[in-house]
């Protein structure tokens, strides 16, 4: 058994009234890959930031090679050999790769404030070679792909080896969340290579990734470390149960439920809709209380159709009927007035104002509901918001907390509430509502969406995986190259994923 590189001793941390971490103890051996798993908001990121010196713990110690870290700062952690690869990347896109790798610690490459570019490039080359990576050191970082930038981040962290002369402890915060399958493979491969020279802590939502690279797995729930498992002998179901810790997994129902009878009136009807080269000849009916899932690869036109229904892009031909009457397209504001709600996939950018409170975010689009005469009735607003916080089980310290401080799943719920708070939208468009959420948050959003449909709201859904589509939809429309290729009712175990796939490609 190799020596212990880092140990955390009963770490505790509060943010306001929320206990983010409670009595967390774990240890990392040298040359070991640790997987850190847990739902959104379970405290993994906070823990990682404490390790990296970005946050000071309220209680407990971080002990690196037998010595407790006395100062909580990024540079102190770096001096002890701890380096972090950030989820939101920490590279300067306007500089060269070489400059980024050595930013702030150029060493011999800068003498008396003067740059020796040849030396700097040579040094960068050496770092990149450690990863077997052929990016040229004088490339401008902004022109690299996300996966390549991830490599540069790794190379940057590896400079710790030469600077401090110890084996580094590398922290990876969801290193694969923005990458596609091929790139993910490259990054995971690198992590496997790193094992020969460093300790690694990886935070990820994707179980298969963690199982592939990790030696040991720690599971966190509600700010506590609830389990430690050996990655070689662990069972995936066991891990999921640990992470959820409760009954939620059952709600993530599979599509073998019986088909739900849909016999209500038609809510939305598209007739021969077309938009330049994006899509053509789109016709379908959406009933009240029906969930219609769109399947299709990137570029199949399903997003464009949704944008048109929401009024963000006028169609070039065809018409859209809402409850039997033709609607004109004069932008999203009109769509909102007509009771069409859109929950975008880029919720941080399009759906949420991070530095406004939960309450303000919720009532932003529909101040009318909390209005009395000409003025805002803040008591009524407050009550309404509290109601929805409770109904959607949004975890927030208070209604006044800034929306940006909530975890991803809870932010998503705030966006959902924002559109539900109006007097019942008629049509809800969900664009990748589950993106970036963990299993627990997904299950909850699932349950809420089903509930809404039962209350008569029609839902148009775009999801990342077929599994999600099948679990949630009453009907699946398959699109390919801008046209509908199949309409498949869901229920009793049908259709299979293969059936949908055949129509997609």
């Amino acid at each position, binding site marked *: 058994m190799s020596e212990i590189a880092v140990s955390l001793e009963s770490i505790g941390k509060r943010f306001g009234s929320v206990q983010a971490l409670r009595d967390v103890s774990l240890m990392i051996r040298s040359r070991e890959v640790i997987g850190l798993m847990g739902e959104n908001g379970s405290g993994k990121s906070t823990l990682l930031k404490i390790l990296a010196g970005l946050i000071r713990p309220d209680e407990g110690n971080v002990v690196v090679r037998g010595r407790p870290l006395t100062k909580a700062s*990024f*540079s102190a952690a770096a001096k002890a050999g701890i380096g972090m690869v950030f989820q939101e990347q*920490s*590279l*300067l*896109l*306007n*500089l060269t790769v070489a*400059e980024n790798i050595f*930013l*702030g*610690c*150029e060493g011999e490459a*800068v003498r008396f*404030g*003067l*740059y020796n*570019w040849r030396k700097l490039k040579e040094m960068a080359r050496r770092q990149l070679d450690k990863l077997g990576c052929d990016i040229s050191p004088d490339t401008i970082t902004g*022109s690299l792909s996300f996966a390549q930038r991830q490599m540069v981040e790794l190379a940057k962290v590896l400079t710790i080896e030469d600077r401090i002369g110890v084996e580094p402890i590398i922290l990876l915060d969801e290193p694969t969340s923005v990458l*596609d*399958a*091929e790139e993910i493979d490259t990054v995971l491969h690198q992590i496997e290579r790193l094992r020969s020279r460093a300790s690694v802590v990886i935070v990820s939502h*994707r179980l*298969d990734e963690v199982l592939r690279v990790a030696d040991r797995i720690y599971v966190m729930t509600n700010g506590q470390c609830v389990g430690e498992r050996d990655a070689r002998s662990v069972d995936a179901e066991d891990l999921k149960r640990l992470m959820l810790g409760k009954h939620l997994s059952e709600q993530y129902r599979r599509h073998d439920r019986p088909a739900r009878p849909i016999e209500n009136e038609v809510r939305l009807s598209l007739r021969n809709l077309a938009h330049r080269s994006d899509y053509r000849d789109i016709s379908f009916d959406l009933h009240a209380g029906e969930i219609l899932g769109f399947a299709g*690869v*990137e*570029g199949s036109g399903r997003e464009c159709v949704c944008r048109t229904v929401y009024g*963000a892009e006028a169609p070039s031909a065809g018409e859209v009927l809402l409850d039997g009457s033709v609607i004109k397209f004069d932008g*999203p504001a009109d769509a909102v007035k007509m009771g069409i709600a859109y929950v975008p996939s880029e919720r941080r950018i*399009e759906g949420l104002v991070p530095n406004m409170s939960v309450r303000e975010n919720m009532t932003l689009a529909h101040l009318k509901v909390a209005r009395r005469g000409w003025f805002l009735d803040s008591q009524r607003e407050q009550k309404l918001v509290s109601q929805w916080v409770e109904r959607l089980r949004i975890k927030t310290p208070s209604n006044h907390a800034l929306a940006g401080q909530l975890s991803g799943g809870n932010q998503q719920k705030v966006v959902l509430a924002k559109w539900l708070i109006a007097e019942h939208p008629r049509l809800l468009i969900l664009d990748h509502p589950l993106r970036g959420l963990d299993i627990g948050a997904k299950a909850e959003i699932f349950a809420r969406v089903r509930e809404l449909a039962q209350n008569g709201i029609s839902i148009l859904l775009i999801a*990342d*995986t*077929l*599994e999600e589509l099948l679990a949630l939809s009453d009907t699946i429309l398959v699109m390919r190259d801008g046209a509908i290729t199949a309409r498949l009712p869901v229920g009793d175990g049908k259709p299979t*994923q293969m059936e949908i*796939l055949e129509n*997609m*490609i």
Partner: protein
Amino acid sequence: MDRTPTGVIQWPSLAARDGNMRKVIGVLREMAVTWGPALALVILYTAFSIGDARFASLANLKTLASQSAIPLILATGMTYVILQGSIDLSVEGVMAVSSLSCAMLLRNSRTGFDLGVIALLVGICVGAMFGTLNGILITRLRIPSFMVTLGIWSVTSGIAMLISGGQPPEIRDMSIRGWALGETIGVPNLTLVALVCLVIGYLLQNFTRFGRYTYVIGGSEEIAKLSGVRINFYKVLGFGLCGLTAGLGGVLESARLGLGHVEIGAQQMFLTLTAVVIGGTSLSGGRGGVIQSAVGVLILTVLANGMIFIGVTPYLQKAVQGVIILVAVVAATWRFRARLRVVK
């Protein structure tokens, strides 16, 4: 086609093709941003030369070189401040103080001093001092550079008026006046100084820690801070440099006109900012450089001079300049546009 365990559908061929297309378009755009201003300069120059043959004459070329000298010096310093994502609005006031303090120390109509070159150095140092003061106020008090430098503009103008006392000193040091108006091997002396400034600016930008960290700060102060970069120090240095070039500009303009005057820098700030932005240095920081700014200066000089040749009235000239700024900014930021995006 392949499927990952989570069921995400991949379509590699399409994605790859799309990626390549995007890369090509990206490279083309990058080239347009880099070479666009230079191309515009060539087109303008050619167009005016065709419009009036006298425009391309050697005599007018000298005029162009001489007219662009001081804006070139000012733009070099301003580029650093803008690269850091800040702005310096105090240029005109700083130029005025430098101009007056230098003129009062040279042989002049008001005082008994006759310090010669030392007076020039004092003027430049006064500029650097106020620039440094800008930087210190901004970093210590954490007030936006926009506000601080606006204040310092007022302060320096006031000081200049106080020194001037309503009687602008005439410079009577003939050797310095002669040098400022003279030329060496056919190039105006002030233009030579401007070129030296430009070269130093370029070397600082690319081969010193100050220069590279200027880009780092403009790129992201957060990341710079995390990497242990002494942001405040380099910011003060940036503003100091900008003040120094303003001082130099004020001193040289005084030497050329033979006058220390409060209004010595009138219109220069707007011109300098415009030149920097037109050249392709982004106001949000981190992109651009002194060479780009120099191209911007030349575009504006050629435009102003050329419009006289083809007979555009001075009133319209100003409007044309404004339109050109708007067009340049739109062109530079075109690719960042997005529907439904809010710009503040």
